[in-house]
Protein backbone atom coordinates (compact mmCIF):
# COMPACT_ATOMS: atom_id res chain seq x y z
CA UNK A 1 0.00 0.00 0.00
CA UNK A 2 2.70 2.43 1.04
CA UNK A 3 6.25 1.85 -0.14
CA UNK A 4 9.24 3.87 0.93
CA UNK A 5 12.50 3.65 -1.01
CA UNK A 6 15.73 5.05 0.36
CA UNK A 7 13.98 8.04 1.89
CA UNK A 8 16.15 10.84 3.21
CA UNK A 9 14.74 13.72 5.22
CA UNK A 10 16.92 16.69 5.95
CA UNK A 11 16.35 19.52 8.38
CA UNK A 12 18.31 22.70 7.74
CA UNK A 13 21.59 21.49 9.17
CA UNK A 14 21.23 17.79 9.78
CA UNK A 15 19.93 14.57 8.29
CA UNK A 16 16.98 13.28 10.33
CA UNK A 17 16.24 10.17 8.29
CA UNK A 18 18.84 8.51 6.08
CA UNK A 19 17.96 6.21 3.18
CA UNK A 20 15.09 4.46 4.91
CA UNK A 21 13.22 1.75 3.03
CA UNK A 22 9.98 0.36 4.34
CA UNK A 23 6.75 -1.13 3.13
CA UNK A 24 3.34 -1.07 4.79
CA UNK A 25 0.98 -3.85 3.79
CA UNK A 26 -2.74 -4.38 4.22
CA UNK A 27 -3.71 -6.34 7.31
CA UNK A 28 -0.36 -5.77 8.99
CA UNK A 29 0.56 -3.69 12.03
CA UNK A 30 4.12 -2.40 11.88
CA UNK A 31 5.76 -1.06 15.04
CA UNK A 32 8.51 1.52 14.70
CA UNK A 33 10.72 1.57 17.77
CA UNK A 34 13.93 3.28 18.67
CA UNK A 35 15.46 5.69 21.17
CA UNK A 36 14.42 9.34 21.50
CA UNK A 37 15.60 11.47 18.60
CA UNK A 38 16.02 8.48 16.28
CA UNK A 39 13.81 10.18 13.66
CA UNK A 40 10.69 8.04 14.15
CA UNK A 41 8.21 10.90 14.23
CA UNK A 42 10.03 12.63 11.37
CA UNK A 43 9.69 9.51 9.25
CA UNK A 44 5.99 9.28 10.13
CA UNK A 45 5.42 12.94 9.21
CA UNK A 46 7.15 12.39 5.88
CA UNK A 47 4.93 9.40 5.09
CA UNK A 48 1.95 11.70 5.47
CA UNK A 49 3.40 14.25 3.05
CA UNK A 50 4.03 16.88 5.70
CA UNK A 51 7.80 16.87 5.27
CA UNK A 52 9.34 16.96 1.82
CA UNK A 53 11.94 14.26 1.19
CA UNK A 54 15.48 15.35 0.32
CA UNK A 55 15.99 12.06 -1.46
CA UNK A 56 14.30 8.76 -2.23
CA UNK A 57 10.62 8.20 -2.90
CA UNK A 58 7.31 7.40 -1.25
CA UNK A 59 4.83 5.44 -3.31
CA UNK A 60 1.16 5.36 -2.37
CA UNK A 61 -0.58 2.56 -4.26
CA UNK A 62 2.40 2.53 -6.63
CA UNK A 63 2.17 6.26 -7.44
CA UNK A 64 4.43 8.97 -6.11
CA UNK A 65 2.94 10.62 -3.01
CA UNK A 66 3.79 14.04 -4.40
CA UNK A 67 1.29 13.59 -7.22
CA UNK A 68 -1.65 13.36 -4.82
CA UNK A 69 -3.59 16.37 -3.55
CA UNK A 70 -3.82 16.93 0.20
CA UNK A 71 -7.35 15.59 0.32
CA UNK A 72 -6.50 12.57 -1.81
CA UNK A 73 -3.67 11.72 0.61
CA UNK A 74 -5.92 12.23 3.63
CA UNK A 75 -8.44 9.78 2.15
CA UNK A 76 -5.71 7.13 2.05
CA UNK A 77 -3.51 7.97 5.02
CA UNK A 78 -4.67 9.11 8.44
CA UNK A 79 -2.61 10.16 11.42
CA UNK A 80 -3.24 9.65 15.11
CA UNK A 81 -1.03 12.03 17.03
CA UNK A 82 -1.03 13.38 20.53
CA UNK A 83 -4.12 15.56 20.69
CA UNK A 84 -3.67 19.28 20.32
CA UNK A 85 -4.81 21.62 23.05
CA UNK A 86 -8.41 22.64 22.40
CA UNK A 87 -9.27 26.30 22.81
CA UNK A 88 -12.89 26.23 21.66
CA UNK A 89 -15.67 24.04 23.04
CA UNK A 90 -16.25 21.10 20.67
CA UNK A 91 -18.47 18.10 21.29
CA UNK A 92 -17.17 14.56 20.77
CA UNK A 93 -19.45 13.99 17.78
CA UNK A 94 -18.38 17.27 16.14
CA UNK A 95 -14.77 16.30 16.73
CA UNK A 96 -15.21 12.82 15.24
CA UNK A 97 -17.17 14.14 12.25
CA UNK A 98 -14.05 16.19 11.46
CA UNK A 99 -12.70 12.94 10.05
CA UNK A 100 -15.42 13.00 7.38
CA UNK A 101 -14.13 16.27 5.93
CA UNK A 102 -12.05 14.34 3.37
CA UNK A 103 -15.21 12.96 1.81
CA UNK A 104 -17.11 16.27 1.63
CA UNK A 105 -18.14 17.32 -1.87
CA UNK A 106 -16.66 20.77 -1.45
CA UNK A 107 -13.93 21.83 0.88
CA UNK A 108 -15.73 24.38 3.01
CA UNK A 109 -19.45 24.67 3.25
CA UNK A 110 -20.09 20.92 2.85
CA UNK A 111 -22.57 19.38 5.26
CA UNK A 112 -22.38 15.87 6.63
CA UNK A 113 -24.41 13.30 4.76
CA UNK A 114 -26.45 10.47 6.22
CA UNK A 115 -23.55 8.17 5.40
CA UNK A 116 -21.12 10.42 7.32
CA UNK A 117 -23.33 10.13 10.40
CA UNK A 118 -23.52 6.36 10.06
CA UNK A 119 -19.73 6.09 9.84
CA UNK A 120 -19.32 8.38 12.86
CA UNK A 121 -21.84 6.29 14.77
CA UNK A 122 -19.99 3.08 13.99
CA UNK A 123 -16.53 4.39 14.94
CA UNK A 124 -17.96 5.81 18.17
CA UNK A 125 -19.25 2.34 18.95
CA UNK A 126 -15.90 0.83 17.94
CA UNK A 127 -14.04 3.09 20.37
CA UNK A 128 -16.69 2.82 23.08
CA UNK A 129 -17.52 6.51 23.00
CA UNK A 130 -21.16 6.27 21.99
CA UNK A 131 -22.53 7.36 25.34
CA UNK A 132 -20.19 10.36 25.39
CA UNK A 133 -20.97 11.65 21.90
CA UNK A 134 -22.79 14.74 23.13
CA UNK A 135 -20.16 15.69 25.73
CA UNK A 136 -17.59 18.42 25.25
CA UNK A 137 -14.08 17.17 24.50
CA UNK A 138 -12.81 19.19 27.46
CA UNK A 139 -15.02 17.15 29.80
CA UNK A 140 -13.40 13.83 28.84
CA UNK A 141 -10.56 12.07 30.60
CA UNK A 142 -7.17 11.79 28.89
CA UNK A 143 -7.89 8.22 27.83
CA UNK A 144 -11.30 9.09 26.44
CA UNK A 145 -9.86 12.02 24.51
CA UNK A 146 -7.17 9.85 22.96
CA UNK A 147 -9.89 7.39 21.94
CA UNK A 148 -11.78 10.28 20.32
CA UNK A 149 -8.62 11.16 18.36
CA UNK A 150 -8.46 7.54 17.18
CA UNK A 151 -12.20 7.58 16.37
CA UNK A 152 -11.73 10.67 14.22
CA UNK A 153 -8.89 9.00 12.34
CA UNK A 154 -10.97 5.83 11.84
CA UNK A 155 -13.86 7.99 10.59
CA UNK A 156 -11.76 8.98 7.56
CA UNK A 157 -11.92 5.30 6.52
CA UNK A 158 -8.35 5.66 5.29
CA UNK A 159 -6.74 2.24 4.75
CA UNK A 160 -3.37 3.39 6.10
CA UNK A 161 -3.05 4.45 9.75
CA UNK A 162 0.01 6.23 11.10
CA UNK A 163 0.06 6.42 14.89
CA UNK A 164 2.57 8.59 16.74
CA UNK A 165 2.93 7.33 20.31
CA UNK A 166 -0.81 6.81 20.61
CA UNK A 167 -0.55 5.19 24.02
CA UNK A 168 1.86 7.63 25.65
CA UNK A 169 -0.64 9.12 28.12
CA UNK A 170 -2.78 6.07 28.68
CA UNK A 171 -3.02 3.67 31.59
CA UNK A 172 -2.37 -0.06 31.16
CA UNK A 173 -5.86 -1.13 30.17
CA UNK A 174 -6.46 1.77 27.79
CA UNK A 175 -3.13 1.14 26.06
CA UNK A 176 -4.29 -2.34 25.21
CA UNK A 177 -7.83 -1.37 24.14
CA UNK A 178 -6.52 1.36 21.86
CA UNK A 179 -4.11 -0.93 20.09
CA UNK A 180 -6.78 -3.63 19.97
CA UNK A 181 -8.99 -1.22 18.00
CA UNK A 182 -6.14 -0.62 15.58
CA UNK A 183 -5.50 -4.36 15.29
CA UNK A 184 -9.20 -4.94 14.63
CA UNK A 185 -9.27 -2.32 11.88
CA UNK A 186 -6.28 -3.98 10.20
CA UNK A 187 -7.81 -7.46 10.43
CA UNK A 188 -11.38 -6.61 9.42
CA UNK A 189 -10.79 -3.89 6.81
CA UNK A 190 -7.35 -4.98 5.58
CA UNK A 191 -5.87 -1.68 6.78
CA UNK A 192 -2.16 -1.10 7.29
CA UNK A 193 -0.88 0.54 10.46
CA UNK A 194 2.45 2.01 11.45
CA UNK A 195 2.75 2.61 15.19
CA UNK A 196 5.57 4.66 16.64
CA UNK A 197 5.94 3.57 20.24
CA UNK A 198 8.33 3.38 23.15
CA UNK A 199 6.56 0.41 24.62
CA UNK A 200 8.43 -2.56 23.19
CA UNK A 201 6.29 -5.16 24.92
CA UNK A 202 3.11 -3.61 23.61
CA UNK A 203 4.66 -3.61 20.14
CA UNK A 204 5.62 -7.25 20.58
CA UNK A 205 2.07 -8.13 21.46
CA UNK A 206 0.27 -6.23 18.69
CA UNK A 207 2.67 -5.89 15.78
CA UNK A 208 3.30 -8.24 12.88
CA UNK A 209 6.42 -6.40 11.79
CA UNK A 210 8.89 -4.48 13.93
CA UNK A 211 11.23 -1.84 12.58
CA UNK A 212 14.19 -0.76 14.69
CA UNK A 213 15.47 2.75 14.14
CA UNK A 214 18.56 4.51 15.43
CA UNK A 215 20.11 7.87 14.51
CA UNK A 216 17.97 8.29 11.40
CA UNK A 217 18.63 4.82 10.00
CA UNK A 218 16.50 1.71 9.93
CA UNK A 219 18.63 -0.91 11.67
CA UNK A 220 16.45 -3.96 11.21
CA UNK A 221 13.03 -4.89 9.89
CA UNK A 222 11.35 -8.21 10.51
CA UNK A 223 8.92 -10.18 12.62
CA UNK A 224 8.90 -9.62 16.38
CA UNK A 225 10.96 -12.76 16.93
CA UNK A 226 13.54 -11.70 14.36
CA UNK A 227 13.95 -8.15 15.60
CA UNK A 228 13.37 -8.24 19.33
CA UNK A 229 16.63 -9.98 20.16
CA UNK A 230 19.03 -8.96 22.95
CA UNK A 231 21.82 -8.22 20.46
CA UNK A 232 19.79 -5.85 18.27
CA UNK A 233 18.04 -4.13 21.17
CA UNK A 234 21.31 -3.57 23.02
CA UNK A 235 22.84 -2.14 19.87
CA UNK A 236 19.96 0.29 19.36
CA UNK A 237 19.17 1.32 22.92
CA UNK A 238 22.63 0.97 24.53
CA UNK A 239 21.18 -0.94 27.44
CA UNK A 240 21.36 -4.61 28.40
CA UNK A 241 18.09 -6.42 27.99
CA UNK A 242 16.69 -9.74 28.93
CA UNK A 243 14.39 -11.29 26.31
CA UNK A 244 12.23 -14.24 27.22
CA UNK A 245 8.91 -15.60 26.02
CA UNK A 246 5.70 -14.06 27.35
CA UNK A 247 4.19 -16.70 29.66
CA UNK A 248 0.77 -16.49 27.99
CA UNK A 249 1.23 -15.41 24.38
CA UNK A 250 4.76 -16.70 23.82
CA UNK A 251 5.80 -13.47 22.03
CA UNK A 252 9.18 -11.99 22.97
CA UNK A 253 9.11 -10.15 26.31
CA UNK A 254 11.77 -7.53 26.83
CA UNK A 255 13.06 -6.49 30.23
CA UNK A 256 15.78 -3.86 30.43
CA UNK A 257 18.61 -4.78 32.77
CA UNK A 258 19.91 -1.54 34.23
CA UNK A 259 23.16 -1.29 36.15
CA UNK A 260 21.12 -0.83 39.32
CA UNK A 261 19.70 -4.32 38.87
CA UNK A 262 23.11 -5.99 38.84
CA UNK A 263 23.43 -6.22 42.57
CA UNK A 264 20.27 -8.34 42.73
CA UNK A 265 22.09 -10.79 40.43
CA UNK A 266 24.90 -11.17 42.94
CA UNK A 267 22.62 -11.80 45.87
Amino acid at each position, binding site marked *: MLEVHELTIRYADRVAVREASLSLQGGKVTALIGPNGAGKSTLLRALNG*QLKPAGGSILLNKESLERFSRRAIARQITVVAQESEL*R*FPVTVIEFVLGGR*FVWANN*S*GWGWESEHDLEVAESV*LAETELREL*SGRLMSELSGGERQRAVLARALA*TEAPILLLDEPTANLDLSHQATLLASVRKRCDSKNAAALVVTHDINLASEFADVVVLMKAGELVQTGTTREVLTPELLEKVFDVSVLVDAHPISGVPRVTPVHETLRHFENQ
Partner: protein
Amino acid sequence: MTTALLSIRQGRVTLRKTMVWCAALIVALLLTVLIAALIGSEKLPTNASACSILSVGMNPCGLTRDQLDILFQIRLPRILLAAAVGGSLATAGASYQALLRNPLAEPYLLGVSNGAAVGTMLALVFFGTFEWSRPFMAFVGSLLATFAVYRLGRGRVGATPERLILAGVIVTTLLSSVIVFVTTLMDATRIRSFTFWLLGDLSGANRRLLPLTISVAVIGTVILTLNARSLNLLMLGERDAFDLGVEVSRVRITVFLVASLLVGSSVASSGSVGYVGLVVPHLARLSLGSDNRISIPSAAILGALFVIIADTVARTIIAPRELPVGAITALIGAPLFIYLLKRD
Protein backbone atom coordinates in the same frame (compact mmCIF):
# COMPACT_ATOMS: atom_id res chain seq x y z
CA MET B 1 -32.92 3.97 15.17
CA THR B 2 -31.11 3.59 18.47
CA THR B 3 -31.24 6.24 21.15
CA ALA B 4 -27.52 6.92 20.83
CA LEU B 5 -27.99 7.57 17.13
CA LEU B 6 -30.84 9.94 17.90
CA SER B 7 -28.71 11.87 20.34
CA ILE B 8 -25.98 12.20 17.71
CA ARG B 9 -28.45 13.78 15.34
CA GLN B 10 -29.99 16.09 17.89
CA GLY B 11 -28.51 19.49 18.58
CA ARG B 12 -26.05 19.24 15.72
CA VAL B 13 -25.57 22.18 13.42
CA THR B 14 -27.27 21.46 10.13
CA LEU B 15 -27.89 23.41 6.96
CA ARG B 16 -31.53 23.74 7.98
CA LYS B 17 -30.70 25.10 11.42
CA THR B 18 -28.25 27.58 9.87
CA MET B 19 -30.80 28.78 7.32
CA VAL B 20 -33.52 29.22 9.95
CA TRP B 21 -31.22 31.20 12.25
CA CYS B 22 -29.86 33.40 9.50
CA ALA B 23 -33.36 34.11 8.19
CA ALA B 24 -34.53 35.09 11.68
CA LEU B 25 -31.50 37.32 12.18
CA ILE B 26 -32.04 39.00 8.80
CA VAL B 27 -35.64 39.80 9.76
CA ALA B 28 -34.36 41.30 13.03
CA LEU B 29 -31.75 43.27 11.07
CA LEU B 30 -34.35 44.74 8.68
CA LEU B 31 -36.57 45.74 11.61
CA THR B 32 -33.60 47.38 13.32
CA VAL B 33 -32.74 49.32 10.17
CA LEU B 34 -36.33 50.57 10.03
CA ILE B 35 -36.44 51.56 13.70
CA ALA B 36 -32.97 53.17 13.66
CA ALA B 37 -34.01 55.29 10.66
CA LEU B 38 -36.87 56.73 12.70
CA ILE B 39 -34.68 57.66 15.67
CA GLY B 40 -32.68 60.86 15.60
CA SER B 41 -32.44 64.48 16.69
CA GLU B 42 -34.96 65.45 14.00
CA LYS B 43 -38.36 63.88 14.67
CA LEU B 44 -39.86 62.21 11.61
CA PRO B 45 -43.49 61.01 11.35
CA THR B 46 -43.33 57.27 12.01
CA ASN B 47 -45.93 55.89 9.61
CA ALA B 48 -45.03 58.11 6.69
CA SER B 49 -41.30 57.37 7.11
CA ALA B 50 -41.85 53.63 7.35
CA CYS B 51 -44.09 53.77 4.30
CA SER B 52 -41.47 55.72 2.39
CA ILE B 53 -38.63 53.39 3.34
CA LEU B 54 -40.65 50.31 2.42
CA SER B 55 -41.30 51.79 -1.00
CA VAL B 56 -37.52 52.33 -1.31
CA GLY B 57 -38.04 56.08 -1.69
CA MET B 58 -40.37 55.73 -4.69
CA ASN B 59 -43.30 57.10 -2.71
CA PRO B 60 -42.82 60.16 -0.45
CA CYS B 61 -45.91 59.07 1.60
CA GLY B 62 -46.48 62.69 2.57
CA LEU B 63 -42.97 63.52 3.82
CA THR B 64 -41.53 66.94 3.01
CA ARG B 65 -38.44 67.35 0.79
CA ASP B 66 -36.28 68.04 3.89
CA GLN B 67 -37.61 65.02 5.72
CA LEU B 68 -36.95 62.83 2.69
CA ASP B 69 -33.41 64.17 2.52
CA ILE B 70 -32.81 63.44 6.18
CA LEU B 71 -34.13 59.90 5.73
CA PHE B 72 -32.50 58.95 2.43
CA GLN B 73 -29.43 61.18 2.23
CA ILE B 74 -28.33 61.16 5.85
CA ARG B 75 -29.80 58.42 8.01
CA LEU B 76 -30.17 55.41 5.73
CA PRO B 77 -26.69 55.68 4.15
CA ARG B 78 -25.25 55.92 7.64
CA ILE B 79 -27.27 52.92 8.88
CA LEU B 80 -26.29 50.87 5.84
CA LEU B 81 -22.65 51.82 6.41
CA ALA B 82 -22.97 50.80 10.07
CA ALA B 83 -24.38 47.44 8.95
CA ALA B 84 -21.59 46.88 6.42
CA VAL B 85 -18.87 47.88 8.91
CA GLY B 86 -20.34 45.74 11.69
CA GLY B 87 -20.77 42.74 9.40
CA SER B 88 -17.24 43.10 8.01
CA LEU B 89 -15.54 43.41 11.38
CA ALA B 90 -17.50 40.59 13.02
CA THR B 91 -16.81 38.23 10.10
CA ALA B 92 -13.13 39.15 10.10
CA GLY B 93 -12.95 38.63 13.88
CA ALA B 94 -14.68 35.24 13.74
CA SER B 95 -12.33 34.02 11.01
CA TYR B 96 -9.17 35.32 12.68
CA GLN B 97 -10.25 33.56 15.88
CA ALA B 98 -10.73 30.24 14.12
CA LEU B 99 -7.60 30.47 11.99
CA LEU B 100 -5.32 31.68 14.78
CA ARG B 101 -6.99 29.36 17.34
CA ASN B 102 -7.41 32.31 19.61
CA PRO B 103 -10.72 33.45 21.10
CA LEU B 104 -9.16 36.87 21.75
CA ALA B 105 -8.06 37.60 18.18
CA GLU B 106 -9.80 40.69 16.84
CA PRO B 107 -8.91 43.18 14.06
CA TYR B 108 -8.62 46.09 16.49
CA LEU B 109 -6.60 44.26 19.16
CA LEU B 110 -4.32 42.62 16.59
CA GLY B 111 -3.38 45.99 15.13
CA VAL B 112 -4.95 45.11 11.78
CA SER B 113 -7.36 48.05 12.06
CA ASN B 114 -4.43 50.35 12.78
CA GLY B 115 -2.65 49.02 9.69
CA ALA B 116 -5.71 49.92 7.64
CA ALA B 117 -5.87 53.33 9.35
CA VAL B 118 -2.25 54.08 8.42
CA GLY B 119 -2.99 53.03 4.83
CA THR B 120 -6.06 55.28 4.70
CA MET B 121 -4.14 58.24 6.13
CA LEU B 122 -1.27 57.84 3.71
CA ALA B 123 -3.79 57.69 0.86
CA LEU B 124 -5.44 60.88 2.17
CA VAL B 125 -2.15 62.73 2.51
CA PHE B 126 -0.55 61.64 -0.74
CA PHE B 127 -3.42 60.74 -3.08
CA GLY B 128 -6.18 62.86 -1.52
CA THR B 129 -7.96 63.39 -4.80
CA PHE B 130 -8.32 59.70 -5.63
CA GLU B 131 -11.14 58.46 -3.48
CA TRP B 132 -10.52 54.83 -4.40
CA SER B 133 -6.95 54.95 -3.17
CA ARG B 134 -8.24 54.95 0.44
CA PRO B 135 -9.89 51.52 0.57
CA PHE B 136 -7.06 50.11 -1.52
CA MET B 137 -4.32 51.46 0.73
CA ALA B 138 -6.35 50.45 3.79
CA PHE B 139 -6.45 46.90 2.42
CA VAL B 140 -2.69 46.89 1.84
CA GLY B 141 -2.13 48.30 5.34
CA SER B 142 -4.29 45.70 7.05
CA LEU B 143 -2.72 42.88 5.04
CA LEU B 144 0.79 43.97 6.03
CA ALA B 145 -0.24 44.32 9.68
CA THR B 146 -1.86 40.86 9.58
CA PHE B 147 1.32 39.24 8.29
CA ALA B 148 3.47 41.15 10.78
CA VAL B 149 1.35 40.00 13.73
CA TYR B 150 1.20 36.45 12.41
CA ARG B 151 4.99 36.25 12.05
CA LEU B 152 5.68 37.91 15.39
CA GLY B 153 3.06 35.80 17.15
CA ARG B 154 4.56 32.49 16.08
CA GLY B 155 7.22 31.40 18.49
CA ARG B 156 9.21 28.22 18.26
CA VAL B 157 6.44 26.42 20.09
CA GLY B 158 3.70 27.88 17.89
CA ALA B 159 1.43 30.81 18.59
CA THR B 160 0.04 30.97 22.11
CA PRO B 161 -2.95 33.30 22.62
CA GLU B 162 -0.91 35.59 24.88
CA ARG B 163 2.00 35.83 22.48
CA LEU B 164 -0.31 36.73 19.63
CA ILE B 165 -2.03 39.47 21.61
CA LEU B 166 1.39 40.78 22.65
CA ALA B 167 2.43 40.86 19.01
CA GLY B 168 -0.81 42.76 18.35
CA VAL B 169 0.10 45.29 21.05
CA ILE B 170 3.55 45.81 19.50
CA VAL B 171 2.16 46.31 16.00
CA THR B 172 -0.63 48.57 17.34
CA THR B 173 1.73 50.88 19.25
CA LEU B 174 4.19 51.01 16.37
CA LEU B 175 1.42 51.95 13.94
CA SER B 176 -0.03 54.44 16.44
CA SER B 177 3.22 56.34 16.37
CA VAL B 178 3.09 56.34 12.57
CA ILE B 179 -0.44 57.73 12.82
CA VAL B 180 0.72 60.50 15.16
CA PHE B 181 3.54 61.29 12.77
CA VAL B 182 1.22 61.49 9.75
CA THR B 183 -1.28 63.58 11.74
CA THR B 184 1.35 66.25 12.34
CA LEU B 185 1.62 66.57 8.55
CA MET B 186 -2.01 67.65 8.41
CA ASP B 187 -3.42 71.09 8.92
CA ALA B 188 -4.95 71.90 12.29
CA THR B 189 -8.55 72.10 11.08
CA ARG B 190 -8.56 68.51 9.93
CA ILE B 191 -6.99 67.06 13.05
CA ARG B 192 -10.16 67.06 15.14
CA SER B 193 -12.28 65.25 12.58
CA PHE B 194 -9.37 62.92 12.15
CA THR B 195 -9.18 62.02 15.82
CA PHE B 196 -12.89 61.29 15.72
CA TRP B 197 -12.45 59.11 12.65
CA LEU B 198 -9.64 57.17 14.32
CA LEU B 199 -11.96 56.24 17.19
CA GLY B 200 -14.47 54.89 14.73
CA ASP B 201 -16.92 57.37 13.30
CA LEU B 202 -19.80 56.78 10.91
CA SER B 203 -20.87 60.40 10.50
CA GLY B 204 -18.81 60.84 7.37
CA ALA B 205 -20.80 58.19 5.48
CA ASN B 206 -19.33 58.50 2.01
CA ARG B 207 -22.00 57.76 -0.55
CA ARG B 208 -19.63 56.87 -3.32
CA LEU B 209 -17.72 54.30 -1.25
CA LEU B 210 -20.89 52.89 0.34
CA PRO B 211 -21.69 50.39 -2.45
CA LEU B 212 -18.09 49.15 -2.29
CA THR B 213 -18.19 48.71 1.49
CA ILE B 214 -21.48 46.81 1.31
CA SER B 215 -20.33 44.58 -1.57
CA VAL B 216 -17.07 43.75 0.19
CA ALA B 217 -18.98 42.89 3.39
CA VAL B 218 -21.40 40.55 1.59
CA ILE B 219 -18.88 38.88 -0.74
CA GLY B 220 -16.26 38.56 2.02
CA THR B 221 -18.75 36.92 4.37
CA VAL B 222 -19.82 34.47 1.66
CA ILE B 223 -16.20 33.51 0.84
CA LEU B 224 -15.27 32.99 4.49
CA THR B 225 -18.47 31.03 5.14
CA LEU B 226 -17.54 28.79 2.23
CA ASN B 227 -14.28 28.02 4.06
CA ALA B 228 -16.05 27.43 7.35
CA ARG B 229 -15.65 23.66 7.45
CA SER B 230 -11.90 23.96 6.88
CA LEU B 231 -11.82 26.58 9.62
CA ASN B 232 -13.61 24.15 11.95
CA LEU B 233 -10.62 21.81 11.61
CA LEU B 234 -8.05 24.62 11.76
CA MET B 235 -9.63 25.64 15.05
CA LEU B 236 -8.39 22.32 16.43
CA GLY B 237 -4.81 22.96 15.30
CA GLU B 238 -2.93 23.40 12.04
CA ARG B 239 -1.37 19.96 12.17
CA ASP B 240 -4.70 18.25 12.86
CA ALA B 241 -6.25 20.17 9.97
CA PHE B 242 -3.40 19.18 7.65
CA ASP B 243 -3.69 15.52 8.63
CA LEU B 244 -7.44 15.61 7.99
CA GLY B 245 -7.03 16.90 4.45
CA VAL B 246 -7.25 20.69 4.79
CA GLU B 247 -5.01 22.63 2.43
CA VAL B 248 -3.82 24.74 5.32
CA SER B 249 -1.78 27.32 3.42
CA ARG B 250 -4.54 27.94 0.88
CA VAL B 251 -7.14 28.50 3.61
CA ARG B 252 -4.73 30.69 5.59
CA ILE B 253 -4.02 32.92 2.58
CA THR B 254 -7.74 33.14 1.77
CA VAL B 255 -8.62 34.18 5.31
CA PHE B 256 -5.79 36.71 5.52
CA LEU B 257 -6.70 38.28 2.17
CA VAL B 258 -10.45 38.36 2.66
CA ALA B 259 -10.35 39.44 6.32
CA SER B 260 -7.87 42.21 5.43
CA LEU B 261 -10.18 43.32 2.65
CA LEU B 262 -13.11 43.42 5.09
CA VAL B 263 -11.15 45.36 7.71
CA GLY B 264 -9.61 47.64 5.07
CA SER B 265 -12.90 48.61 3.48
CA SER B 266 -14.60 49.27 6.80
CA VAL B 267 -11.69 51.27 8.26
CA ALA B 268 -11.39 53.35 5.07
CA SER B 269 -14.98 54.45 5.48
CA SER B 270 -15.40 54.64 9.24
CA GLY B 271 -12.08 54.41 11.09
CA SER B 272 -11.25 51.78 13.68
CA VAL B 273 -14.44 50.66 15.34
CA GLY B 274 -13.04 48.49 18.09
CA TYR B 275 -14.14 45.27 19.77
CA VAL B 276 -16.92 44.42 17.28
CA GLY B 277 -14.83 41.49 16.08
CA LEU B 278 -14.49 40.26 19.65
CA VAL B 279 -17.95 40.82 21.15
CA VAL B 280 -20.06 39.60 18.26
CA PRO B 281 -18.39 36.29 17.30
CA HIS B 282 -18.22 35.45 20.99
CA LEU B 283 -21.94 36.06 21.32
CA ALA B 284 -22.62 33.96 18.21
CA ARG B 285 -20.52 31.05 19.49
CA LEU B 286 -22.01 31.26 22.96
CA SER B 287 -25.55 30.90 21.64
CA LEU B 288 -25.02 28.75 18.53
CA GLY B 289 -21.87 26.71 19.22
CA SER B 290 -18.38 26.70 17.73
CA ASP B 291 -19.28 25.40 14.26
CA ASN B 292 -18.11 28.14 11.89
CA ARG B 293 -20.66 27.15 9.29
CA ILE B 294 -23.31 28.74 11.49
CA SER B 295 -21.23 31.11 13.63
CA ILE B 296 -19.59 33.06 10.78
CA PRO B 297 -22.77 34.02 8.87
CA SER B 298 -24.63 34.66 12.14
CA ALA B 299 -21.77 36.80 13.42
CA ALA B 300 -21.94 38.84 10.20
CA ILE B 301 -25.62 39.65 10.68
CA LEU B 302 -25.27 40.15 14.45
CA GLY B 303 -22.30 42.46 13.80
CA ALA B 304 -24.43 44.58 11.51
CA LEU B 305 -27.15 44.73 14.18
CA PHE B 306 -24.65 45.56 16.93
CA VAL B 307 -23.03 48.50 15.13
CA ILE B 308 -26.39 49.93 13.97
CA ILE B 309 -27.59 49.91 17.59
CA ALA B 310 -24.28 51.28 18.93
CA ASP B 311 -24.30 54.06 16.33
CA THR B 312 -27.92 54.94 17.06
CA VAL B 313 -26.93 55.33 20.71
CA ALA B 314 -23.81 57.32 19.70
CA ARG B 315 -25.77 59.84 17.66
CA THR B 316 -28.71 60.27 20.05
CA ILE B 317 -27.39 59.97 23.61
CA ILE B 318 -26.05 63.54 23.79
CA ALA B 319 -27.94 64.92 20.75
CA PRO B 320 -27.49 67.20 18.92
CA ARG B 321 -23.83 66.38 19.59
CA GLU B 322 -22.44 62.97 18.68
CA LEU B 323 -20.06 60.40 20.10
CA PRO B 324 -17.81 58.32 17.86
CA VAL B 325 -19.41 54.88 17.54
CA GLY B 326 -16.06 53.31 18.52
CA ALA B 327 -16.47 54.79 22.01
CA ILE B 328 -19.75 52.90 22.48
CA THR B 329 -18.46 49.57 21.10
CA ALA B 330 -15.34 49.82 23.28
CA LEU B 331 -17.51 50.54 26.31
CA ILE B 332 -19.26 47.21 25.73
CA GLY B 333 -16.25 45.30 24.39
CA ALA B 334 -13.50 46.11 26.86
CA PRO B 335 -15.25 44.57 29.92
CA LEU B 336 -15.99 41.44 27.87
CA PHE B 337 -12.33 41.21 26.86
CA ILE B 338 -11.32 41.35 30.52
CA TYR B 339 -13.89 38.68 31.33
CA LEU B 340 -12.58 36.38 28.58
CA LEU B 341 -9.00 36.93 29.67
CA LYS B 342 -9.85 36.11 33.29
CA ARG B 343 -11.86 33.04 32.40
CA ASP B 344 -8.88 31.45 30.63
